[in-house]
């Protein structure tokens, strides 16, 4: 057995050699065209590169290497992936197929409007969908991920305040349950952050809020439903308080999967909201992006939206004159400006547009209904096993505290789940819950899968009950065991380097 493992380790190591370690002088992975133009003189040699070190590998070697790498991953396509706050739902391949259609994939962002009417129409219609879903006045698809949406969103608030001559308002309130991007975005936008606690029911603490509602108040960033998986019942009152104090309300809509067709954030009083298309609208997460984080605003903030945004023109143009194209891309009048090289991650937008169009209005309700049903089912089935810090109905996800059983802390339970073929929940977030396990099943998982997951957690709990130390060494059956993160940070090795 020892010999067996040794060999296999060597073999596994071999399969993971880096590209530069596989490189051999003279190999190539591409068939290259020859030049078909007369030879042109080269620039002065002093301008030219010498000594470019890149791999020399064949196409087949790249295929075998990347294919093997892929198999080391858990993914939605292979495993239940209940990573809370991330909405790891099934990503339809049809969306991918549409993004690969040549007329979209090879359209160039700097082409004149008249040449890209099809692409801009997609953007325009997606803006309309998102406005309808959020109940807002306008939308911008420019933000390239949720965090950039937040930044852009709070920048519209800042711009509106500045326009009103209220440049002194620089205080941004952020609940203690918020995702880390919220305070980071607020800081990037030049706000200072004041944290607001949650109350015993997990809603925002209105008393604490009232205390901060002063002349420095720029606004508040509230996640609805919150990262506790709860619909914040104080949202309307919160909006009233903030508005009365002269501030704006930013809605982090990353968890919109729970609310599709159930409520429009605009109706509750939110002034600006971002959506994560790579969560709610099924565009694949890609191991950490790309995403898209469009924002929707009410009338007041709309002039400040980042851009360009898609607009629909009424056709003018007399005879003989060239007609203006129907759809256009324009910067809103007082835009906070461009936040990326082009008008958005079009390929991601197109996937989301495809998804919404296919499922339609009814499909939106199916999503939220089943997402919330699945989460509440897990809540009920797992409440014996773990502490439930806020004992009430949840929305799309449920946050437990794994404090009950010694030896079965959030980390150990998570690691052991991997052996059972389940990706771990989000752990140790939100920060207000000790030993947090944040579980988001999504609507695309079946009851059988949820039951198997419940069984696995029950088994793991029993393992810890039998032997308090057992889980500390999990996982046992993954391609690698626990990794030394301290060593990684102490002597960072961030790239291959030629040895010696």
């Amino acid at each position, binding site marked *: 057995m020892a010999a067996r493992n040794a060999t296999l380790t060597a073999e596994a190591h071999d399969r993971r050699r880096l590209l530069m370690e596989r490189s051999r002088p003279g190999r190539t992975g591409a068939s290259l065209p020859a030049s078909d133009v007369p030879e042109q003189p080269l620039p002065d040699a002093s301008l030219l590169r010498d000594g*470019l070190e890149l791999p020399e590998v064949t196409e087949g070697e790249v295929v075998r290497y990347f294919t093997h790498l892929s198999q080391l991953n858990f993914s939605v396509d292979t495993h239940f992936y209940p990573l809370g706050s991330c909405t790891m739902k099934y990503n339809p391949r049809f969306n991918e197929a549409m993004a690969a259609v040549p007329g979209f994939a090879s359209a160039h962002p700097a082409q004149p409007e008249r040449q890209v009417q099809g692409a801009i129409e997609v953007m325009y219609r997606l803006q309309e969908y998102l406005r309808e879903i959020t109940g807002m006045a306008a939308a911008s698809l420019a933000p390239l991920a949720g965090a950039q949406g937040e930044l852009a969103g709070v920048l519209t608030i800042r711009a509106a305040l500045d326009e009103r001559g209220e440049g002194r308002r620089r205080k941004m309130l952020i609940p203690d349950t918020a995702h880390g991007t919220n305070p980071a975005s607020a800081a990037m936008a030049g706000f200072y952050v004041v944290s607001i606690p949650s109350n015993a029911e997990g809603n925002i603490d209105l008393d604490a809020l009232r205390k901060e509602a002063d002349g420095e108040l720029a606004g508040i960033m509230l996640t609805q439903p919150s990262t506790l998986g709860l619909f914040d019942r104080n949202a309307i009152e919160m909006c009233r308080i903030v508005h009365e104090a002269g501030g704006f309300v930013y809605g982090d809509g990353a968890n919109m999967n729970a609310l599709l067709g159930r409520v429009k954030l605009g109706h509750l009083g939110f002034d600006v909201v971002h959506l994560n298309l790579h969560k709610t609208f099924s565009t694949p997460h890609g191991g950490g992006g790309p995403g898209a984080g469009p924002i929707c605003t009410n009338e007041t903030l709309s002039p400040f939206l980042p851009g360009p945004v898609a607009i629909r023109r009424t056709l003018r143009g007399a005879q003989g004159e060239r007609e203006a194209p129907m759809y256009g891309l324009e910067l809103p009048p007082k835009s906070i400006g461009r936040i990326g090289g082009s008008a958005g991650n079009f390929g991601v937008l197109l996937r989301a547009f495809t998804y919404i169009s296919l499922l339609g209005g009814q499909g939106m309700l199916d999503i939220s209904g089943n997402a919330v049903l699945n989460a509440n089912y897990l809540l009920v089935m797992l409440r014996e096993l773990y502490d439930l810090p806020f004992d009430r109905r949840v929305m799309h996800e449920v946050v437990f505290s794994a404090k009950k059983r010694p030896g079965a802390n959030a980390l150990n339970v998570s690691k052991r789940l991997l052996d059972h073929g389940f990706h771990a929940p989000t752990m140790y977030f939100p920060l207000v819950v000790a030993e947090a396990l944040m579980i988001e099943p999504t609507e695309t998982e079946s009851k059988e899968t949820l039951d198997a997951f419940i069984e696995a957690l029950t088994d793991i709990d029993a393992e810890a009950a039998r032997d308090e130390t057992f889980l500390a060494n999990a996982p046992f059956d993954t391609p690698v065991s626990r990794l030394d993160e301290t060593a990684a940070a102490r002597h960072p090795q961030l790239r291959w380097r030629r040895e010696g």
Partner: protein
Amino acid sequence: MPESPFVSPYIPNTDDDRASMLATIGVGSVEELFDDIPAEHRHPHLDIPAPRSEMDLRRELEALAERNFHAGAHPSFLGAGVYHHYCPAVVSPLVTRGEFLTSYTPYQPEVSQGTLQGTYEFQTLTAQLFGMEVSNAGMYDGASSLAEAALMACRITGRAKVAVVDTVNPHYAEVVRAYTGPQQIEVYAIAPDATELEPETACVLSQYPNFFGYVEDVAARSELAHRAGALHCVSCDPMAMAMFRAPGECGVDIATGEGQALGVPPSFGGPYVGIFTCRQEYLRQLPGRLVGRTVDTEGRTGYVLTLQPREQHIRREHATSNICTSTALIGLWAAAYTALMGKHGLPHVAGLCYQKAHYAAGRIAELPGYRLPIEGTFFQEFVVSCPKPAEEVSITLEEAGIIGGLDVSDRFENGMLLCVTEVNTKDEIDGLLNVLAGIK
């Protein structure tokens, strides 16, 4: 035949499942689960059309796609920061394997080694391509990379002024302004031949080759910056770096770039991947994710996200950036492209771009009424002053089935920025010349 009521092909819960789960939960209906929402706002009218079948929707979307006049069907001479390069057919099926496509940020490294090691390759290849010491795991795009570089330079130097050379992509300059403005950082423009910086300048931002396709003296600019105690941040075209001196050899402190040129489809603007590289000493000021190499409990090599205390999920408002979801998959795509092209292929392709662009430029300069207003060395892009306004030229080209260059008449009289890459055949170039020759 009866209309089949719509059933989502993506949702496994059946009516039976729902009934049994509701019973377990102890509520009577799915609607009840939403009781926390104030009744007056619950279940609003949602004006989104009825569900469509994949077949019908495909038909509609393909028709929309064909309403684009696109480079899949027409020769294109448009670049301006986004380039048509030929990507080998093998990249897409490999990179879009479900295990890469549908996983998320590798928070559980034991079951994410594929993404982690792939990102490590991206960091290696981009660092080597730019001749820089370290690279992060990728940013949103080239423009936001440069903006984050400016912020990082301000953090490092403790200064709050940014000089942008006026040959930087104007969109990039706008993004720099949007990012720096709120932090009270002052942005000012300088000419490429500027020899002085304002006091308290944190960094100079350059582009290489510049927005008009030409190679500036990067090393001299680095000296200018360093003399003033500022950093030099340069946005580089990674394809050009296979031909021209690397920023790492020109004293550059932070080298960013648009990774799209590494075989990523234009897709009307994204998704792309921002390259972000810098000197080792600035490591802890880097925005974005970093993957590091380490060992597991049995001594096996493995990879993890590292130096996370720079990041938002730990440092919140004190983080080096707010970036969370980035563009890992596009980074993987760029890495696969770069590996396939490799040491010989990438310079070969860069060489083809150079050759073809220079052939085109040379011939256009000979046409009556046309001239090249800029002197110097260019890579694959160049500005042409046309006998007519650039917009008219663009329309004439379109009528001839050609996608023309960018209108830069705000900077050069009747100026059009043309781009020629390896995907343009001599026939296509000659076709362009032909149409141009007809415009007088």
